[in-house]
């Protein structure tokens, strides 16, 4: 008898019949829905937050400086190539990446011409020459107006936009594609 009872108990255990499940199916499904509701609420709060967190910064403004301070206007001498540096900044999340760039400025009265100091040939830094500019790497030469007068460079010097902000000269710095005859903005 005892053996039979033990076998029956084991069978009950395996089938799960010894478990006291809630009698009414309504209670079972009510609890099931409640559990589902709780898990979904937690998951949605987390999911929405994580979505904003991961995707948000990808759509924020890049914070690249458009007009960059290139120093005082009054310090630029008349009709003499003047070299200036400016810092272009790009916001990238926790950091602001600053890069120093060089420009050449020629002043004629109130008129300014601003050149990028990057050689349109292969990107060396352009120097001042007797009556214009010269690239020390491959000997390309330009006159004081930035027009090409010799060497392997494919085009004239790249002219940059500028504006006056009170006493300060501001330049919209651009990088151009090298080695091509037309001026194409890269960034």
């Amino acid at each position: 008898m005892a053996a039979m009872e033990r076998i029956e108990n084991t069978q009950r255990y395996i089938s799960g019949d010894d478990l006291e499940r809630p009698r009414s199916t309504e209670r079972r499904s009510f609890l099931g829905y409640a559990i589902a509701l709780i898990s979904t609420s937690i998951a949605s709060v987390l999911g929405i937050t994580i979505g904003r967190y991961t995707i948000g910064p990808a759509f924020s403004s890049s914070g690249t400086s458009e007009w960059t301070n290139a120093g005082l206007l009054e310090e630029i001498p008349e009709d003499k190539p003047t070299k200036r540096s400016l810092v272009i900044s790009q916001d990238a999340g926790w950091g602001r990446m600053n890069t120093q760039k060089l420009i050449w400025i020629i002043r004629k009265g109130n008129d300014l011409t601003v050149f990028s100091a990057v050689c349109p040939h292969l990107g060396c830094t352009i120097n001042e020459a007797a009556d214009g500019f010269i690239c020390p790497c491959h000997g390309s030469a330009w006159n004081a107006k930035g027009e090409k007068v010799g060497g392997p460079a494919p085009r004239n010097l790249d002219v940059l936009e500028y504006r006056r902000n009170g006493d300060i000269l501001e330049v919209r710095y651009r990088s151009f594609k090298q080695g091509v005859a037309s001026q194409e903005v890269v960034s």
Partner: protein
Amino acid sequence: MTPAKSLGLRIYDWIDERSGITHIMRSLTDERIRGGASWAYVFGSSLVFLFILQAITGICLALYFVPSADHAHASVAYIQKAVPGGQLLRGLHQYGSSLMVILVVIHMAQTFLFGAYKGKRELLWILGILLFILILGFAFTGCLLPWDQAAYFGTKVGTSIVGEVPLIGEIMQRILLGGSELTTLTLSRFFMLHAFLFPFSIGLLILFHIYLFRRAGAAGPFHHNHEHKVEPFYPNQLFLDATFILVVFIVLVVLAEFWPAELGPMADPTSDYLARPAWYFLPLFQLLKYFPGQLVLIPAVVLPGVAIGFLFLLPFMDRSSERNPVRRPAAVFLLSLLLASPIGLIALSKYQDRSNSEVRGTLEKQQEVSDSFLRAAFHPQEIGRSIPIDPPQISHPTERASTPLKIYFANCANCHGATAAGGPMGPSLVKIAKRRDLSREALGTWIQGHMREPVADSMPSFKQLTNEEIAELSDWLVTLDSPLSSKPEAIPVAVRDGEPPEAYVAACAFCHGSRGEGNIGPSLIGISAMPNRTPEDLLRLLKNSRAYGLKDPMPKSFPKITDKDKGAIVRWIGRLTAEKNPSPAN
């Protein structure tokens, strides 16, 4: 004809046939709860929930976090202040860690009190203790990662306790720190442990823990009244678990939203910050006060060792099957001791900090600084110079040169040049206010470094200057519209004597420091008193350093410096004795 099954059901069936998911779910949800569902059993599952939450929020934080001493703080400040949802996710992670410590202690205390470690559950219990230790390890390594003042100095105290252990302490401390000091290498190590090794280990241990638990079965109530009532885990117990987890989650969200996780200013190893560890390490911190010198071994090693050892051996020592706490007075007494002593020590530590007016004042001030940093708007870290160094231009000092200012020569001239028209390290300051469109106040905050927080520009913060000095300096700077006269008589005598020759500034200062104090190269102060360093030796050394056994990065020779300039450098170095060398702070 049975109606056609919906597509969803057919997909489920397809997966089920191949994976047996229904069987797995059934065996998971049919876990037998002896004595029926109870609020007493919610702690284990809520710990699993917290672990998953920590993993999810941790992965999110890793998206922007940079494990380097230079950028860690800026990246955490960015997460906290600028990224949408960042404050919530970081808050969940930080408060979640504290709650995990609390819940794991409750979980263990309950197992202890209900005698639930009995009946072939020794391994289960031991795994639980290992999990507890790992959770503390998570907390300890996580504290350092934001690299703010509290993080840096808290970890410094923590790691120096390790160093107190006799014989192996120093070696262990070095291994932990990745060197003799707390540096960026320490941060890398802690990050690796916190984000890779520990999560992997704890995940495995949790799986084993749950497996052993299911194998041994829930212990059930310690009294035998409801012995026959057995409920499945689903739905009643799971409902209670889910409700408790929801409460836990809401509490964490409210804390994170309304009491944002703390973040102070970036760690400054030179400051005298009063360190306090995270609350769960306060008991150890408080104990250390009572055991001076060699006795530090007792609180740092012996007491925690005894407590952990006791917990490990507990199921082997206590072999009786009695589980009712009322009939186990010794166990209840020990548990109360194990719980009450850390709580008492935390309370005592807080009380002592509060009753010592000096400590209290310092802590309150630190808290204010930390709070105001947290409130301040986010500023991205400047990578590279934010002000250009203009290419050298020939300057023509005019007669209407500005009056030189002593503060300028003591603090700024080394980088910005003796005429303020720009030097080897710093840009020209002539008309700086006009050129950069800066107000007098903005100049002041710039010099003090507040605008560059966290400091990243190569210009140091001059926090040591008083407000009056800053005001005087900025007043002078806004009117500086021409370079200073380079005539020697214009330069204050005290500064002129200590001023290095220009050739030194150009060729040597970068390595040996602007005043010979040493940087990546050795200090030159007092070097002329050393053997083989007479002025003649030094002149010969500058012509052929290899003949004096010097190696890279010291150049072999300096062909660009004239003999006359070499003489000036050697004469200046000869005057560099400890007493005569003017300290830049004066």
